[in-house]
């Protein structure tokens, strides 16, 4: 009888030990999972914060372009044509946000530099090729190069593709 009791006790102790072990393992697993979840959360947070940061900081881009035409245009004519075409093609609000400015124009070589926010850089490049006339005179505007600094833009204006 006493032997049976002993076996019973040992069995009870063993089962208790096993259950304790299972609990410990479960806790460790949940800890691992929670650490993974926290890592993921951090990653998502960092991604969002990076996006927010990039939207907040609007950088400038300088687009160098040239005009092919029989006529020689003045700076004001070209700037007005670009602004009008932008608001016609992409709307008034986009035009206000993009704010394309003709910051430099050399009438002798009919080339210029447009300053625009980096978000609307593609829009301005797309637009330039489709300006077919300025003040009723036919022309073609060709985007040559996009840069991040005005100094580089001016350098390109006088050097690149003079032919």
């Amino acid at each position, binding site marked *: 009888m006493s032997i049976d009791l002993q076996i019973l006790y040992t069995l009870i102790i063993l089962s208790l030990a096993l259950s304790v072990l299972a609990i410990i393992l479960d806790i460790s697993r949940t800890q691992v999972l929670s650490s993974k979840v926290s890592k993921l959360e951090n990653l998502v947070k960092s991604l969002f914060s990076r996006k927010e940061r990039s939207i907040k900081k609007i950088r400038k881009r300088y687009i160098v372009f040239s005009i*092919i035409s029989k006529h020689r245009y003045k700076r004001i004519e070209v700037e007005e044509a670009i602004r009008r075409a932008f608001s016609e093609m992409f709307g008034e609000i986009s035009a206000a946000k993009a704010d394309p400015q003709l910051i430099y124009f050399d009438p002798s070589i009919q080339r210029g530099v447009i300053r625009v926010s980096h978000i609307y850089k*593609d*829009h301005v*490049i*797309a*637009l*330039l*090729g*489709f300006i*077919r*006339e300025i003040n009723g005179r*036919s*022309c*073609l*505007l*060709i*985007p040559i190069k996009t840069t991040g600094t005005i100094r580089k833009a001016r350098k390109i204006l006088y050097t690149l593709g003079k032919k």
Partner: protein
Amino acid sequence: MKIYIDLWIKSLDSKTAEILRKLGYKAIAVEEERERVADLLVITKRVIEANTRKELKEKLHGIKRKHVLVSVKPLSIEAARMAAHDSRVDTIIIDDTCYKYIDRNQINLMKQHSKPLELPLGRWLTYTPRKRSAIYRRVVYYLFHTKMPLIVTSCAKNWDELLVPRSTIYLLSIAFHIPLSQAVLSLTSYPRELISRCGVSI
């Protein structure tokens, strides 16, 4: 270096050829060649407008296949279906006169017979907003959904109607929501494939 190709120029003179060279085009398809030009690969383009199946058949009869690019502007459903079936046709044009006949079934049929759609982009911007958006819907919903190629042309009569390649690529990307890498193909690889099918190599 990218090889830009314009598959529809209405008439070619020396001034247009000079600007094409400046813009970086290597090959063009011309409907009416006024002057011979050097440094540019020029092939002939035939644009056929047809109201009926019979008319299209008659107009296609006798066209030489070599060095000639055949495009069809269908003016009825039956002409559109026939154009998609016929092996002599290279491209099917979509513009303000025929956009109604380019429906989902037509695009599926074009996919079966590997016929690309041709869009005169310069003109597309001058259409009325209603027609412009109808063409946009057909291109984005049907054509890109079936992963069919889109070929962009200028349909230029004068030098000032030519497409500036870089601007065109960016406009395609913005207007039709396609990545730049895919937009480039509309001016380079897809037209090049068609030209090589006509027996000309670049």
